[in-house]
């Protein structure tokens, strides 16, 4: 079973991201379970969302404490919350950032990857420069980074989960981010 944790801010679409990814994995034959951090959300406050997937039906319904992978939708969260909490050794952290992965030296015991999801989102008309909606872009990068799901299936899942008028922009952003992800060179080979 693989467990993923998304860190975002209320309104950025972390929960929707987990559900789109779940739908894509399900389309490729996986059993899936996606859920938000249980509680109340406020716009701008740190939020989390979770995803489990496996080749067998998932029965565990407790929360996720030791994820295999972490996705960070907003780089300022690195200053606010411990995004590595419980992350398995050699787990991956995908960060929305224009900076190269090597610049996150404090995280060097993990596999760090970055993608300028904010820039990509804005370029595709998703949100504003101060409040870009990066959830679909970062999923494109996640698909490339992990290889868990094909880009095509991910785009299909977006078509299913998003309102029609938002589809193309989001799919284009995911495609662009798929091409733009950068993985810390020294660690690239250790990704499972």
């Amino acid at each position, binding site marked *: 079973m693989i467990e993923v944790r998304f860190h975002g801010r209320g309104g950025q679409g972390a929960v929707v991201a987990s559900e789109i990814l779940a739908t894509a994995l399900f389309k490729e034959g996986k059993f899936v379970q996606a859920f938000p951090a249980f509680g109340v959300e406020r716009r701008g406050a740190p939020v989390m969302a979770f995803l489990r997937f496996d080749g067998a039906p998932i029965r565990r*319904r407790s929360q996720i404490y030791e994820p295999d992978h972490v996705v960070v939708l907003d780089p300022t969260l690195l200053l606010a919350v411990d995004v590595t909490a419980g992350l398995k050794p050699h787990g991956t952290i995908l960060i929305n950032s224009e900076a190269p992965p090597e610049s996150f030296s404090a995280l060097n015991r993990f596999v760090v990857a970055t993608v300028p999801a904010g820039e990509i989102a804005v370029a595709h008309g998703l949100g504003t420069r101060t409040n870009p909606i990066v959830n679909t872009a970062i999923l494109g990068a996640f698909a490339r980074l992990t290889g868990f799901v094909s880009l095509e299936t991910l785009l299909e899942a977006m078509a299913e989960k998003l309102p029609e008028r938002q589809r193309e922009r989001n799919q284009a952003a995911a495609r662009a981010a798929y091409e733009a992800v950068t993985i810390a060179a020294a660690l690239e080979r250790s990704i499972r």
Partner: protein
Amino acid sequence: MTPTLTGTKKVVTGNHAVSYGAMLARVQVISAYPITPQTQVVELLSEFCANGTLRAKFIKVESEHSAMAALIGAASTGARTFTATSAHGLALMHEMLHWAAGARLPIVMADINRAMGPPWSVWTDQNDSLSQRDTGWMQVYCESNQEVLDTVIQAYRVAEKVSMPAMLVLDAFVLSHTAEPIEIPDQSLVDEYLPPYRPLYKLDPNDPRSFGALAPPDVYMELRYKMHQAMEDALIEWARADEEFSELFGRRYGLIEPYRADDAEILLVTSGTVTSTAREVIDELRAEGRRVGLLKIRVFRPFPAQLVRAALQDTEKVAVLDRNISFGMGGIFAQEIKSALYNSTKRPPIFGFVAGLGGRDITPSVIREIIDYTESHDEPEDLIWVGVKR
């Protein structure tokens, strides 16, 4: 949200599984008041009503008490009715819950289990639904989103058969906000399973009758006797509804479900989503060679006492996991199970555990701890608090 294609598999939340169930049951009147974590249930249903997916009257009201009152009126005219609520919303309905049951109206409601305040909580436990135990509503506790959808449909079948209201119950967040794959059955199959509601008596200007009149002592008790008989009948009807459901849809749940219970020396009794996690733990313990099994209680009212007795009497010890507390007594499922076994000649010792109140996570290790405790103690204890900070 575009109109849904049925007969497909989709990744949906527990809340939306409820909405799809109500849609497929072709409910005619919905009345509800929003409350976390239920709101998404009726939000999607209101969209279905607005875009024509569901031809139902959606009545907005100022409180849950009014929501249930509106459904009592609608059901009295012979309409199939639905609502959903949680915690304080359910508590506010309390008076009307008695009325719905006493008036023998087959209203179906989803209660998303949420802990009662104060202090405020939005997280899961069972005290809200169990506080309504004696109102005359059937109660069914669900474990997965598929079971949630299927139970909505089964609930109408049974409720309309025995003329008693039914509440399906699902854990806040653990199901309500958790998305997982479910099969959304074909509408034509659901129609075959669940024909339109045809009440024996209804409010009809062309056939005037009086409802809810004063009942003097010489008839009141007979009406209460009939309600109890209807609940007894409902035990048979749930089994029948489940059997026929499995023939059409290939899924069945039982009133209770023993899991790896054969030859078990310890049986853990659970309800709701804890059951799902417990299955995994039981498999692990069995792989370690330990003789432990599980008994899931799905239908809580009517209480399937005979089935519970038969399932538990030959085991050496029973551990009941309650996500609820009756202050001054203990876990409520534990009390019911003790009560069911007391007149039996074979009565295994029963350990009562209370865990997971107010949404505290029940992890595999919590479940292991409960089984280890039961295994290592000879004398049963009525109330063991799990993981409480003292």
